């Protein structure tokens, strides 16, 4: 059993609160003054050299945000956030638009090296077996570098930071930005609309199959900053793109806010596959510190026969509040959601999905696996809504929770709303612990207890891991084992 052995070794090596990516880097930064006001928004907009309409868009969102109240319905608790005690803009000084990697601060490059993120194109090319992955690296508030831009350009794919896109492709941005998650959507999305600093922009033109995996790597480094990224992915008619995001942050005692918005648009026959491996700093054993991950992610299957699939592996963050959703507007469109949410220590997760069926023959599938350990709380909250005109719509939902130890909680809160008699909805959920029978079966075949548990947990999440691109599947599996360390056995 070499694979299992490897897993167990991995678990042994790393203690639960030895967060691997918790280092901090001394980098000279350019910061906006602390706090939030119209002036700060003007400052951000000016830094980004944005056109007037973008500033107006931000200000409108800000004014709206002032009238909103923080949502309290999620099963998470945290002290009140002081939105005026956050830096809304922090950028490494040396990155004023580097043309090539050679101009990027070597300190920064070291960070990514340490994180294992390939930024040098040739390095990736040198690896014979590795497939190519284009990376957009976002460091605090700005995108430091985007790789493989030229090669992607040849295929017609636009992949750049959103700040660049606002300058270079204003028409595309104007047409799609806020069309899936409007500025008025919810408290954090509205805040993000006002102050977002960077993120990725992807446009895959008609009929193009994106030649490589695209990925964005988010890193929070600076103290007391919030990261507000905005990602917009558009797949035109018949296009296909697979996109992956990853995230880490230094280990600190204070909580840091991360409020992102991701918008996906799939036109006729297009397909977008969006995978997340979320590994923000989860806080220490006592529940001190960690990232508040309050994210709005939504995909719009705008065209007929389009497909959007979300895959997420959530192991980090002190608090996660995140519901990647699909609006199935086009006839025959399909939405998928595969999730593994692992909570340990004092982590709190309230996550799930929404599948809004508007078009005929739309279908959706939800597979959610929650694992709770320590004194954490892990909630699946999902909605499946079949509207009047969603003839022959189909949904299948399966959410399973696994409890490890008796001090954690696992909760399931699905909302199912059906307004069409030809629609068919199936939902099932279970909560249990690793059964003695399963363990016994493995152990009486000579597998030690710890390995047996790892084996069963891996089996439990396999359905979701399979949906991830190959390279990340391995990483995700390791991550899960690491975050469960100290809770099994």
């Amino acid at each position, binding site marked *: 059993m070499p694979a299992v052995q490897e897993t167990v070794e991995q678990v042994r090596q790393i203690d639960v609160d030895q967060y691997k990516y918790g280092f901090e880097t001394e980098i000279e930064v350019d910061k906006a003054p602390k706090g939030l006001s119209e002036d700060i928004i003007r400052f951000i907009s000016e830094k980004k050299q944005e056109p007037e309409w973008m500033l107006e868009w931000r200000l409108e969102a800000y004014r709206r945000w002032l*009238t*909103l*109240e923080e949502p309290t*319905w999620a099963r998470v608790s945290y002290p009140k956030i002081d939105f005026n005690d956050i830096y809304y803009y922090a950028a490494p000084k040396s990155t004023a638009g580097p043309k090539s990697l050679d101009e990027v601060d070597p300190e920064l490059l070291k960070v990514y090296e340490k994180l294992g993120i390939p930024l040098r194109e040739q390095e990736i090319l040198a690896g014979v077996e590795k497939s190519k992955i284009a990376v957009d690296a976002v460091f605090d508030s700005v995108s430091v570098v985007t790789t493989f831009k030229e090669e992607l350009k040849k295929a017609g794919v636009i992949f750049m930071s959103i700040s660049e896109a606002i300058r270079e492709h204003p028409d595309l941005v104007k047409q799609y930005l806020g069309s899936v998650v409007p500025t008025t959507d*919810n408290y954090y999305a509205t805040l993000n609309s006002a102050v977002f600093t960077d993120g990725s922009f992807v446009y895959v033109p008609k009929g193009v199959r994106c030649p490589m995996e695209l990925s964005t790597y988010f890193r929070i480094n600076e103290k007391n900053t919030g990261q507000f990224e905005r990602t917009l992915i558009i797949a035109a008619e018949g296009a296909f793109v697979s996109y992956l995001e990853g995230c880490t942050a230094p280990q600190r005692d204070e909580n840091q806010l991360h409020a992102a918005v991701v918008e996906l648009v799939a036109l006729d026959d297009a397909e977008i596959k969006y995978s997340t491996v979320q590994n923000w700093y989860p806080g220490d054993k006592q529940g001190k510190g960690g990232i508040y991950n309050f994210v709005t992610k939504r995909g719009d299957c705008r065209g007929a026969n389009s497909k959007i699939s979300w895959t997420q592996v959530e192991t980090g963050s002190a608090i996660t509040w995140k519901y990647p959703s699909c609006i199935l507007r086009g006839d025959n469109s399909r939405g998928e959601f595969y999730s593994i949410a692992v909570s340990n220590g004092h982590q709190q997760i309230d996550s799930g999905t929404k599948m809004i069926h508007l078009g005929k023959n739309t279908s959706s599938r939800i597979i959610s696996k929650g694992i709770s350990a320590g004194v954490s709380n892990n909630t699946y909250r999902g909605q499946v809504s*079949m509207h*009047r005109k969603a003839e022959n719509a189909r949904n299948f939902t399966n959410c399973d*929770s696994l*409890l*490890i*130890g*008796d*001090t*954690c*909680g*696992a*909760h*399931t*809160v*699905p*909302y*199912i*709303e*059906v*307004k*069409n*008699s*030809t*629609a*068919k*909805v*199936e*939902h*099932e*959920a*279970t*909560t*249990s*612990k690793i059964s003695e029978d399963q363990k016994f079966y493995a152990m009486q075949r000579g597998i030690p207890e710890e390995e047996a548990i790892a084996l069963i947990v891996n089996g439990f999440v396999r359905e979701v891991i399979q949906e991830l691109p190959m390279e990340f599947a391995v990483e995700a599996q390791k991550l899960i084992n690491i975050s469960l360390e100290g809770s099994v056995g």
Partner: protein
Amino acid sequence: MNIQTTNRLTTAESALLDAYNAQIGDLPGDGAVLSVRDRLLDELKTGGLPTRRIESWHYTDLRALLRAVPAVQPAPSLSAVKPLVSGASVLTLRQGAADAATAPEGVTVRRYADSLVDGTAAEGLREASADDAIGRINGSFVRDGLVLEIADGAELAAPLEIQSLHGAGQVHTRFPVRFGAGSKATVIERHRGEGDEAALVSSISALTLGDGAEVTWIVLQEQGAADTHLGQIRVELGADAKLRLFVVNAGGKLVRQELRITVSGEGSELTLRGVNLLGGDTHTDVTLVLDHNVPHTNSTEIIRNVIFDRARGVFQGMIRVAQAAQKTDAKMACNTLLLSDDADFSVKPELEIFADDVLCGHGATVADIDRNHMYYMMTRGVPEKTARAMLVYAFVAQIVEELEEESLVEALEGIISAWLDRHA
């Protein structure tokens, strides 16, 4: 999302306040009871009727749905209906007031009005939780009902049938029932509205099952087409107690049935079965909150819904398992046949689990009749309409058959087929 809730009262809210003011001095109760009543009404006045912003009322916005409240009216002449099972002992209430009754052996019956007057009802009159709007309405207005005591070890030979009959107006009843240790009983709680004019009914049954008691409790709701029915069953299960709770909804315009069940005795077992027959332009909500608080308890819940016309159905089922409640086995299923494009159904089966050594699961389905089933029937020469009717009937009858007592099964099946004949 942040609309300020105004304090302006809706027509129904003002009508409730007016009705209370008009009855001051007339509502039964000693000082303790009256002060609970005053507080409940005051909370109703300041909080208003619940809206969809209150999570447990998300799909039943009572403030919007309850358009008017009928005035309090005297009882019309109401004649007792034939009991569901022949030989049953019948206890009748007319327009919310209990008839003088003789109790069968092993049972003590007392008018709830008397316990209001002597103050023994004060404790139980309080709301069950912060979102307990039914408890507030009922607690403010309740005039009568029945207090039943089933003696330890008593085994009732025949079922006991409580008939709450009424015409238009307001009816608020309460039924605190105590089943002694080791007792065995079958009780039918039947609500029936006569005439086409609207009635507002609120009714709370509070069941306490002593250790080892075995009880079958059937709620049969057959309200009139214009009636609002706000029902609540509170249950406390003792050690090794077994409760079979059957809820049949086959009437009413606006219905909310709340089941608040606390499993607080080890080795106890709950079997909940629900049949909801919805048609016309109606709204029916069944909300279950089930707390497993101790180790080694079982529960199974199956709810079947059949929805025609423009009806709207809701099922919310929350199972909570406390940290101490290891070895809990809880299973819930909610199956719905949505038979019209104008109908809709919302379901929210929740699990809230704090113990690790448990087996909990829920399933929910919403669909039309399976085409393969139809095909099977039709290839055997059964006409489409008949095939449909047979399949719908079988879908709900399957649940009723679990009751085993033949006479009860037959009676309930009769009620279901009669309802389906009227609506299908």
